[in-house]
């Protein structure tokens, strides 16, 4: 129990430090420049230095913020960070609690992120923050339903919410082969859920400064950042479980396979950022309701029919 807890905390912090470094390196190499090179081997310790620096930064609380709500927002966004790791199966044995409602638990706690963004954006008394909050809601009503319905297509084939059962059902063939459309829909929704480009509408830095967290500094900002990168890991882990056969692989130990798949999906999401231009939020809503939701329903019904026929 305590070992698991320490493991999760270590994973969360190392993962965030690594992902920020990876983000900068991926961005740099796509733009044909080396990226951070000074601190550590190829800048590997750069983010550690940045984190230490961030720790010593002044916490500025602007005038006229709604104080309790403003202070609570970064804590609320951090709330689900550890809990989400409870049900992720890293290997057949490496899972803290194999709950019956596994996938539902992840969806339930992920929905807290929007709440926190809304609180942060509104309480800051900054126009950019308010716009960030409004856009975040627009984004939420766009991706949440196709996400739930798409995941449903997989549940239908497995008949269980347990993440280990979902992996076990892929012993012959990964679900990405049977459900390519669902995989595509899930990746689109997951990118939107993590507020990543081309769906980084709530924090669009060239339009809204930093969107909902414009007025946060120091480690209060750090918590938003930490939650964001943890969230990225979680949605990729869920994608791995639902579509890529979880820990399954050859020769290498299961945990290694799981992490390879997770970071491959994260790399894909980082790649998107330098490939697609940002959407306007009305485009996102229209796209979600006219394309993603009908497609998700069609996919679900076809899956149901196919299971009955074969």
């Amino acid at each position, binding site marked *: 129990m305590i070992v698991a807890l320490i493991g999760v905390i270590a994973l969360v912090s190392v993962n965030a430090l690594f992902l920020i470094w990876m983000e900068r390196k991926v961005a740099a190499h796509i733009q044909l420049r080396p990226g951070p090179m000074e601190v550590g081997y190829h800048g590997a310790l750069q983010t550690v230095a940045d984190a230490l620096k961030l720790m010593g930064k002044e916490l500025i609380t602007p005038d006229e913020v*709604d104080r*309790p*709500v403003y202070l*609570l927002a970064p804590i609320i966004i951090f709330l689900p960070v550890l809990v989400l790791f409870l049900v992720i199966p890293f290997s057949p044995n490496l899972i803290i609690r194999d*709950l*019956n*409602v596994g996938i*539902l*638990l992840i*969806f*339930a*706690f992920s*929905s*807290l992120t*929007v*709440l926190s963004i*809304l*609180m942060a954006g*509104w309480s800051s008394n900054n126009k950019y923050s308010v716009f960030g*909050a*409004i856009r975040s*809601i627009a984004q*939420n009503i766009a991706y*949440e339903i196709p996400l739930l319905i798409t995941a449903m297509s997989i549940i239908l084939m497995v008949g269980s*919410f347990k993440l280990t059962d979902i992996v076990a059902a892929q012993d012959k063939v990964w679900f990405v082969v049977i459900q390519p459309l669902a995989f595509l829909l899930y990746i689109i929704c997951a990118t939107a859920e993590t507020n990543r480009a081309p769906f980084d509408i709530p924090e669009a830095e060239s339009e809204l400064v930093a969107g909902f967290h414009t007025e946060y500094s120091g480690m209060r900002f750090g918590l938003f950042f930490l939650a964001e990168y943890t969230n990225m890991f979680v949605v990729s882990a869920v994608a791995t479980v639902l579509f890529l056969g979880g820990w399954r692989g050859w020769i290498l130990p299961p945990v290694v396979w799981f992490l390879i798949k997770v970071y491959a999906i994260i790399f894909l999401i980082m790649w998107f950022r330098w490939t697609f231009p940002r959407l306007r939020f009305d485009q996102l809503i229209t796209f979600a309701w006219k394309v993603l939701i009908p497609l998700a329903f069609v996919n679900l019904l076809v899956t149901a029919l196919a299971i009955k026929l074969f």
Partner: protein
Amino acid sequence: MQVLFLILAAVALISGVLVVIQVNPVRSALYLILNFFTVAGIYLLAHAEFIAAIQVIVYAGAIMVLFLFVIMLLNLRQPEEGGEKQHLAQKISGAALAGVTALLVIYTCTRINLGPAKEMVPGFGSTEAVARSLFTDYLLPFEVTSVLLLVALIGAVILARARLD
């Protein structure tokens, strides 16, 4: 177990009262979200794991977020017109109403014969159990729900139309 229930129930009650007595609607909505979480916890204690998860996804995740959104954008921060006098009248009538309701609940509870609790069926409250009764015994209500949701959709469109035209 009992201790956990008492803690959850106490938090639920306190947050419920705070929802009502807060002047600031945003904070009141935040307390309501806390309330939903504690209620989800109580569902878990009653072995209703599926309902607990749904409670968080639908109420805390979707409905309350949109509620909060509307409150924030309508900008209801300023205290309403009418002043202290009206507030006092509201407080008294509210407290009286709550008292009467509480008395009725207590009266009803003493009247019914609770008897010993039924033996719990294995798998009670699991998703399978909920699904089984929903799709066999309660099939008609379930299908009617879809009509209800359809009506809600049409209602939303018509309300929006009335505003736009």
